[in-house]
């Protein structure tokens, strides 16, 4: 029964900075210049929160009547959220100016959304997790439609909102059924309740669990709850697409693992078969449909579905290696995915033109450094050593094998092979095709270049020297059972 306000200090700091951004936006003059500070204010907020996160205690700590849990697991995830948000702000800075959507709310919404993710990762009961999820989602619904003069952006926003509300309904329904059958929403107490029953589980409670899978499956874009992804990713402003392809997905997995490995850990045989099938469906659908895409944002959308499938494998594996593998994979995915989107942003023109894959023809000669960076990200997504993506896949597949799911690991590897086709196609087009258009001068700002450099370094660093981060990930696994 503690109310340790310091335990959520990073979240509070971030909230404070979000409001400062709003205030500065209102108070600064309408002329150009004032808004340029907003990105830097947000970055300072992110860095402050990251430093506070790093200095947080490493022992498990409950606060606010056991609704908030601070452990290495949540700290690791919070660090990933802050990193991804920081990179997103860096790539947004020039993008929203170019697209003429340079409103201060943009940064505030991104910060608020990050708060939601951090709450999700630190949530110790279902309701708190739900609140975090809604804070995150509502901010992103708005961000998706941020290009309010564009029809496609509006459409994406509305679709996302409608389907999101629909899916949230399942989640809430599931939570209420769980509460009804177990009498608690606290994850540990749910686990205790199930343990007392001695493995015999109430069908109604299992249904609640199934409904939670649907709600979370929607957030992490698992097939068949994925259908919103391509349309929304395509319609949203590219920087927002990058944002929602990393942070919310990571948050979804943070919650997925926490709920199912702690609360439902003792009845894993009940949910593993469901996740098993979802994992196969998600990987295969994502990878196969990605092949036919001609728009790079849609291709990356399907690729992100496929990556969710790989991460579900780690959930099925249900062992420590799977959890640390997930942490590692999400971190490396942050680098490579945001890096790829940053390059999409640099190469596209106002109004999101030139985002067809064929527009990348001849890039290798025209902008060799960008092409090399893009190649590194693509190789990493395909899982080619010595990149982060390879190590991440390696850990996840090893975790599956360790738990005896050899068939699942084989399907995962086959999927990785299929994915090589569309990732490498980008490289082929960049280097071996004659350019089909004139490359107009690019809008390059120091911030976005810095983001790409950080992403490249991160991707290679994790790929060549993975042991240090892996060690941290191993210390951050959930303390199970």
């Amino acid at each position: 029964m503690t109310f340790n306000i310091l335990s959520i200090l990073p979240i509070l700091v971030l909230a404070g900075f979000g409001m400062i951004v709003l205030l500065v936006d209102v108070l600064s003059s309408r002329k150009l210049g004032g808004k340029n500070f907003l990105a830097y204010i947000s970055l300072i907020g992110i860095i402050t929160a990251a430093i506070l996160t790093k200095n947080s205690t490493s022992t498990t700590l409950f606060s606010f009547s056991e609704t908030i849990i601070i452990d290495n697991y949540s700290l690791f995830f919070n660090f990933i959220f802050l990193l991804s948000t920081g990179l997103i702000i860096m790539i947004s800075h020039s993008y929203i100016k170019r697209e003429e959507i340079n409103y201060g709310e943009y940064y505030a919404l991104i910060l608020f959304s990050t708060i939601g993710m951090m709450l999700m990762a630190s949530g110790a009961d279902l309701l708190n997790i739900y609140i975090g999820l809604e804070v995150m989602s509502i901010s992103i619904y708005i961000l998706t439609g941020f290009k309010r003069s564009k029809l496609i952006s509006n459409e994406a926003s509305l679709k996302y909102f409608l389907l999101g509300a629909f899916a949230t309904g399942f989640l809430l329904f599931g939570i209420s059924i769980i509460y009804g059958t177990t009498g608690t929403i606290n994850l540990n107490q749910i686990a205790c309740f199930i343990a007392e029953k001695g493995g015999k589980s109430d069908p109604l409670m299992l249904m609640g669990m199934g409904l939670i899978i649907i709600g979370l499956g929607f957030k992490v874009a698992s097939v068949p709850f994925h259908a919103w992804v391509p349309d929304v990713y395509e319609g949203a402003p590219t920087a927002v697409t990058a944002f929602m392809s990393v942070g919310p997905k990571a948050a979804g997995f943070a919650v997925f693992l926490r709920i199912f490995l702690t609360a439902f850990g003792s009845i894993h045989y009940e949910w593993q078969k469901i996740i098993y099938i979802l994992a196969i469906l998600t990987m295969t659908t994502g990878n196969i449909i990605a092949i036919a895409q001609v728009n790079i944002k849609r291709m990356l959308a399907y690729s992100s579905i496929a990556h969710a499938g790989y991460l579900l494998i780690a959930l099925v594996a249900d062992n420590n290696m799977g959890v640390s593998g997930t942490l590692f994979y999400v971190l490396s995915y942050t680098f490579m995915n945001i890096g790829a989107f940053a390059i999409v942003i640099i190469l596209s023109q106002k109004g999101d033109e030139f985002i067809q894959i064929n527009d990348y023809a001849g890039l290798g000669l025209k902008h060799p450094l960008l092409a090399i960076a893009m190649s590194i990200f693509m190789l990493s997504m395909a899982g080619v050593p010595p990149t982060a993506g390879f190590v991440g896949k390696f850990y996840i597949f090893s975790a599956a094998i360790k738990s005896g799911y050899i068939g699942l690991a084989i399907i995962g590897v086959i999927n990785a092979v299929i994915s090589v086709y569309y990732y490498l196609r980008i490289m082929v087009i960049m280097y071996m095709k004659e350019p089909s258009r004139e490359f107009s001068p690019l809008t390059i700002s120091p911030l976005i270049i810095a983001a790409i450099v950080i992403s490249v370094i991160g991707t290679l660093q994790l790929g060549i020297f993975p042991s240090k981060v892996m060690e941290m990930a191993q210390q951050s696994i959930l303390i199970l059972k």
Partner: protein
Amino acid sequence: MLNTVALVLLFPLIGTIINGLIGKNLRKETVGCIACGAIGLSFLVSIVVFFGLLRFPPDARLFEKTLFSWIESGSFKAAFALQVDPLSSLMILIVTGVGFLIHIYSIGYMHNDKGYHRYFCYMNLFTFSMLLLVLSNNFLLMFIGWEAVGLCSYLLIGFWFEKKSASNAAKKAFVVNRVGDFGFALGIMLIFLTFHTIDFTEVFSSVSNEGFHAGSFTITLITLLLFMGATGKSAQIPLYTWLPDAMEGPTPVSALIHAATMVTAGVYMIARCNVLYVLSPFTMTVVASIGAATALFAATIGLVQNDIKRVLAYSTISQLGYMFLACGVGAFTAGIFHLMTHAFFKALLFLGSGSVIHALSGEQDMRKMGGLRHQIPITYKTFLIGTVAIAGIPPFAGFFSKDEILLESLTRGNFIYWSIASLAALFTAFYMFRLLFMTFHGKSRVDHHAAEHLHESPKNMTLPLTILAGLSFVGGFLGIPGASAINNFLAPVFSSHIHTEMSGIHTGSQHGEGHPYLMMVISTAIAIAGISLAYQMYIKKPDLPKRLSERFHIFYKLLLNKYYIDEIYDVLFVNTTKKGSVLLWKYIDAGMIDGSVNGIARLVGWFSNVFRLLQTGYVRNYAFYIVVGCIFIIVLTILGK
């Protein structure tokens, strides 16, 4: 002081990176300074390391420095670690010292070339690779250097890649070397399988501890495989054919390949693995026989060649044969000693020939030279010293090292080795002086166009020549019989192992019974005989060679065409491989493999196009999918028990 050894590698690497990345935008002077400075600094550090090593007592002269652990997988460990011992410290001195002079020379030689920065980038990388090769403390790292040397030789031989012959020569060098590398790689794998380590020190100590006896089959196999690698890199029968073609590169590159780097790698490797080699009398016989055969074989080809660089190329092959002969009879010190003196005089001869070619605006045919000694006096004098040194006239460097090999081949080997080596020595003296006389003496046959531009080379080219000439003169004194400094210095590497008694091969260095002074007289007499023969044929009676070649037309043709070995290889290996690979390509690869792969790809692509139709864009359909998923999950949870 020994801790600085990593800098030996670092400087050339930095030079490579700077010139490779931004060399294009730098002024030529800067590019040259960076490249030469890198090797020069590396040379200074090598000196520091060398004297650092000397401060230790001879038995303790082994220093290993691990820079970082590189690969660790199960029991397999490979560290990025360097090893300094008498052998490697001597090698880095030779590589950086001679390399430095060649770099200086290149500034003058290449000053008009448009690929200036590219040239120096490759040269630094070449030196770096060779240093990595000799400094590594395990087989894998050595292999990396070994392969990198091969790569750089490819880049440099094909430096003027617009010329068809140059790019062909580069390809040939690379492919022929691959054949040897294959054996080397297999050898390393077998070493790991046998000893469970690839670290030099551990492998060599476990050889003695685990009691491998002389003639053990595994050791014989390992040493033969390693030797296969050596024949490729060091241009021995049967893999020597790339070296004569390698002169397509710029002349200083030839000097670097022939003298300081690359070809000496094989000799170094065998000397490094002497502990393994002495355990296998069979391999030792193979090494000695191939060495002796190559020495004679290449020397005979050298007798009739007309291209100045080609003569030198065959002489390199022949001299390398001597080194292998020395190693093969167990006289590793003699081999390394000859490697060193050869580095001096062969670098000198190649750079000197470069100076001649430079003076004649690119002419390489000796039949269009003659009488040049007055026009390019410095080149002539230094070249003369180099020629005398390789011919084996005391007290020049080549005399001592070659004499020691001849002596050892008799005392440790047998009379056949000695007589082959002596015959080769006779030929060497003959063809080298033939080269000298045809180029610098007699009547000028230079065509008038080139004669107008005839000039001595600039200072930065003649200075390295002078220094190398000095070294070719005094280098031999390090190994005077009876008071051999190099012998004592290298002794810890070659004689610290016990197995010599068992294998019946002596690795120590006693001179004793062979009447060294008598041998000296004999070998000097042989050299003088060769020289006077050349004098008779090319100065006294210039029409004699022509008459002889008409008289012994078949032999002459055979030698001039290098025994048709290239043509035989073409028929036997190159063409059959080509035909075989066309078959594999058309039927196996394009037909079966591509067919099935493309079939699967087409199937997946078809699925892809079908499934994407599910993406209708209507929210109602998407919600419907969610409901389907929901029903499926609920059915699975409640009913699926």
